[in-house]
């Protein structure tokens, strides 16, 4: 397993250390802290009924944000349902992420952000990513399509087809598997007898690497490497990040105590990506409690503003949906548009 920082925040692979400036290192930490707060607040807002669908992210900050930090604005993200943080750091306004959670189409109206809304069909993002990666290659763009799935998702046909297509076309792709050990209640060893998920790259004839997904520097370095290879025309790569979600699968009634022991949680809390990166930065005199509190306050403030904006956003109408179906409405929808216009004007 590729690792740069151990649990104590010590550098264990000096030669692999990515070239990040002090300011970049601090920005990475800011994003991770911010996202941890976003997760805590999202869970609370969900419990208050002010958010809808929500898949917790705490524990996966290094995996999600370390990989995102290696991207450029022109790179295209095809996220899974748990990958909202990457969208936010790619430019999706927070209030729109909240509208996605609440179930409002405006949440999915990407503003000049190279990304799709979170994909609910596990694996679909992988086959679509192959198409985006091939498209970028054919357009001659120095950019990649990056996509994310979980450990359970590696059992899907689309997972294999996506990687295999991208491999056959040497497309500009990065495939990330965030292995948090569980697909809802099903442990990783019930998905496959394969010893690693990274080795599934072999079936597609592409390069694969298993990375410590709680180590933000390792995830960043692996993604950066994969990106450089891809834009040089060397084809796609599969990155497995070994990570953990501290919370439930989603907020829709999942209870992780039914399938996960307290000991396991404690073991992974020791590996917390924030703890070790904080130690690393403090050792370099780049981080202080004061700085961290500033980020926390900022996050809380932003979240308050965003949820207010989401709450105040105009309600959806059936006529909106009808208008968003086709460029030119077919006769059945022309008829139904008139029906609902009449209803809505009452």
């Amino acid at each position, binding site marked *: 397993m590729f690792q740069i920082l151990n649990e104590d925040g010590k550098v264990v692979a000096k030669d692999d250390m990515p070239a990040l400036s002090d300011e970049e290192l601090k920005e990475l930490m800011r994003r991770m802290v911010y996202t941890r707060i976003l997760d805590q607040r999202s869970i609370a807002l969900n419990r208050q009924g002010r958010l809808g669908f929500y898949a917790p992210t705490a524990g996966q900050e290094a995996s999600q944000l370390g990989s995102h930090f290696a991207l450029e604005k022109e790179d295209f993200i095809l996220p899974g349902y748990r990958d909202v943080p990457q969208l936010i750091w790619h430019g999706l306004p927070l209030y729109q992420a909240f509208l996605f959670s609440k179930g409002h189409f405006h949440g999915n109206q990407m503003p000049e952000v190279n990304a799709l809304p979170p994909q609910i069909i596990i694996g*679909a993002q992988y086959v679509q990513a*192959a198409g985006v990666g091939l*498209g970028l290659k054919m357009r001659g763009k120095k950019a990649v399509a990056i996509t994310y799935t979980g450990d359970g998702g590696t059992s899907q046909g689309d997972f294999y087809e996506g990687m295999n*297509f991208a491999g056959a076309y040497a497309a500009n792709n990065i495939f990330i598997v965030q292995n948090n050990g569980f697909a809802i209640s099903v442990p990783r060893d019930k998905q496959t007898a394969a010893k690693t998920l990274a080795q599934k790259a072999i079936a597609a004839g592409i390069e694969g690497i298993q990375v410590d997904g709680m180590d933000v520097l390792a995830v960043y370095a692996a993604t950066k490497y994969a990106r450089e290879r891809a834009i040089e025309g060397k084809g796609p790569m599969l990155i497995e990040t070994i990570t953990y979600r501290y919370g439930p699968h989603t907020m829709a009634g999942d209870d992780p105590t039914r399938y996960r022991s307290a000991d396991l949680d404690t073991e992974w809390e020791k590996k917390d990506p924030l703890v070790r990166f904080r130690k690393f930065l403090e050792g370099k005199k780049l981080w202080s409690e004061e700085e961290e509190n500033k980020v926390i306050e900022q996050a809380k403030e932003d979240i308050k503003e965003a949820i207010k904006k989401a709450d105040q956003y105009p309600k959806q109408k059936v006529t909106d949906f009808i208008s968003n179906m086709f460029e030119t409405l077919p006769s059945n929808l022309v008829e139904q548009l008139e029906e609902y216009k009449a209803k809505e004007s009452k």
Partner: protein
Amino acid sequence: MAQMTMIQAITDALRVELKNDENVLVFGEDVGQNGGVFRATEGLQKEFGEDRVFDTPLAESGIGGLAIGLALQGYRPVPEIQFFGFVYEVIDSISGQMARMRHRSGGTQNAPITVRSPFGGGVHTPELHADSLEGLMAQQPGLKVVIPSTPYDAKGLLISAIRDNDPVIYLEHMKLYRSFRGEVPEGEYTIELGKADVKREGKDVTIVTYGAMVHASLKAAEELEKTGVDVEVIDLRTVSPIDIDTILASVQKTNRVVVVQEAQRQAGIAANIAAEIQERAILDLEAPVLRVTAPDTVYPFSEAEEVWLPNYNDIIEKVNTVMNF
């Protein structure tokens, strides 16, 4: 004007669009150097290059995903599914994904994809090649479903389908590929999607149909004429959305309707046509709307196609029932 088979008209439409728009891409299993298992893409890779017309790995779901991804990069994909019985492998990409793209993105993204695929019976294909599954597609909001029955329609409808900025399922009946030639204009022309065509005018009874059943209906109409029954044959050409105006105009004239499809009775789109007519024109009807369909069994073993597929005799029988109601 040239005399073309339907498959030649399809190739011609693809050529016109590959030339007309550099974003048009044709891909699928064996569509490149091989020119397609039915020669529908014959010569296109040679003329336009491997970047425009290319083979894919053997995986329908991957092909659907590839089309969606390429569409997101501004291309106009025209993927092929080798036989429509294989659509089950790619239902998520079609119904779960591309059909929903514009809606789920709140109108900010679209999928200008035309999925071409052969289907249809009467040529003794092996299992799951000939099944009529247009009913599945017609039930999915966000898709248009086009089924031509003549070389002329095939070309004009395919050009329109490719130019449409939303996904279109374009189904090609295998029995019609080479069974006859028809006049096809050179160069480009379009036929509006969602518009039916009256293939034969008549005043006594309306047959609403599509695909190979258009020709069976025309043959039945000829026979019926000898017995003094004047049949109007409407070729839907697009089975979703349906051209209700053309159907209603005909019903108001004839007051009797038979809907004819090759698909099983519980499948296809005939039930939808019958429902629309009874909701909108029940007072114009002298008799119930009857359906000619295949039986509700799995598509037959190839030797049994003749006894299973609906034919012109079945149509004559149903028309007479409606006439004598």
